[in-house]
């Protein structure tokens, strides 16, 4: 299978934060959701892919091309949506489009006009007069109009109303009718991931906790509930996160069969949602 994106041991150091040995692979024809709490490094990963910030180590390849040595070629194939739209604000949408479109050989003017009309974008208005949601829609229209092979979207659904959010997610899934394309998007809204993503990559404190197909997470990750007397040093090792109250414990595991073998009928096991995984890993060994 061809890879749209490969990150190998990528690192970036800031004062007080470091992205360490981030490795992930996004096959063509799939959608990857990048998830993690605030400050986990999601935006940093996206900026590194686009060479908006310099990496301290590792390698990034987009469709097999090094993202720095073949920067222009790589970026011609990427459609990018930034979490905070940054354009020169006192310019009309029409002028912004006129400035950006010539950079892309595959620019599809008909598609842009159709998206602008569908999204209700006022092309004669200045960018600064738009709401955050409309600014995001404009960015999305630009990113989709040059028929990019890889869409990279940083929190694309933030500030969007639920109806448009769902339409966007459906549109993203539709893009993958062409199996040469791929999508990477970060979000806090875990229901978006459940609905759309094929692969979930979970980042926490600058490290990849896991990067797995959504179905694997569904099969292997679970929420375990039981009484406190079942907790021993050995059983605790089965858990990725644990919450204890005087009434009992609730824990996250990535190995449901192992928990079943060790604790058998003494516990109740439910499938873990992505939000459960986020909450538990972010607050490991929390005691309520």
């Amino acid at each position, binding site marked *: 299978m061809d890879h749209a994106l490969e990150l190998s041991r990528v690192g970036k150091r800031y004062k007080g934060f470091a992205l360490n040995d981030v490795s992930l692979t996004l096959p063509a024809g799939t959608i990857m959701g990048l998830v993690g709490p605030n400050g986990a490094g999601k935006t940093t990963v996206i*900026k590194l892919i*686009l*060479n*908006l*910030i*310099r990496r301290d180590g590792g390698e990034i390849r987009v469709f097999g091309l090094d993202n720095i040595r073949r*920067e*222009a*070629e*790589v*970026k*011609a194939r*990427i459609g*990018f949506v*930034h979490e905070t739209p*940054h*354009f*020169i*604000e*006192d*310019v009309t949408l029409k*002028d*912004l489009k*006129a*400035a*950006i479109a*010539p*950079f*892309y050989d595959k620019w599809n003017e008909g598609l842009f006009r159709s998206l602008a009309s569908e999204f209700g974008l006022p092309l004669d208005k200045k960018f600064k007069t738009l709401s955050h949601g409309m600014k995001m829609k404009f960015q999305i229209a630009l990113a989709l109009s040059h028929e990019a092979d890889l869409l990279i979207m940083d929190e694309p659904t933030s500030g969007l109303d639920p109806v448009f959010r769902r339409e966007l997610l459906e549109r993203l899934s539709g893009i993958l009718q062409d199996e040469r394309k791929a999508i990477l998007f970060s979000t806090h809204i875990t229901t978006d991931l459940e609905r759309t993503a094929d692969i979930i990559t979970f980042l926490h404190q600058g490290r990849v906790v896991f990067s797995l197909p959504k179905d694997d997470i569904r099969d292997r990750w679970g929420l375990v509930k039981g009484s406190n007397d079942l907790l021993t040093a050995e059983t605790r090792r089965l858990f990725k996160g644990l919450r204890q109250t005087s009434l009992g414990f609730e824990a996250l595991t990535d190995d449901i069969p192992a928990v079943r073998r060790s604790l058998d009928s003494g516990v109740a096991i439910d499938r873990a949602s992505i939000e459960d995984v986020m909450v538990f890993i972010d607050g490991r060994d929390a005691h309520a």
Partner: protein
Amino acid sequence: MLDLIRKDLILNKKLLMIFGLLYLVYLSYLGMQVGHPREIVVLSTLMCGLLPLIQYTREDKFKAGVLNCSLPVTRQETVLSRYILTWAMTIVMYTLIMAVIMVLPGRKFGPDAVFNINTVLFALAFMTLYLGFLLPLILRFGLAGMFAFLIVLQLFGVATLLLDRYKVAHFRLSSLAPLVKKGLLDLRASLGTPAYDSLLVVLMVLLTLASFSFAVFLYKRKDF
């Protein structure tokens, strides 16, 4: 390359037109008032060079550099396009202002005073020094780079005054200019005018290339 230049022109067209017109009116008026062509040449060079730089500080203000760096171009191409655009705009604006001054009634000097090889080289040398130092700083640090440049110049001036006043060292900027002028005249006398002019052009090109390389070095290290 052309796409980058076109992008900067489209996104800043209103600002460039308004400021361009203001500069034209103001400097043309001044051109009729001043008696010595060098004064208007220096002032015009300074202000014409500032015009294209304003657009880059706007990008910094709106944090729009992210857009630039997500487009399918290299950072070196971005810097190159900005050097070309800055030089082209500065020269076109300067020439336009000088041409307008020459057709205005009441001017105190004629076309020969500004459209001769010495004055043109003087204006170009001034642009080279001014843009050569300022452009890399503006492209890397935005407005802060421009202010830093001006503050460093001010501090340099204050330092030389203090050194001179407390007799630590005898170094006055006002005495530097005649020394430089004498040195250049001596050089011209020994080389002959054509060789001297050619050498000056070569030095300006080399300085601009050095400035460009430094700007690329800085811009490649800029995080957005």
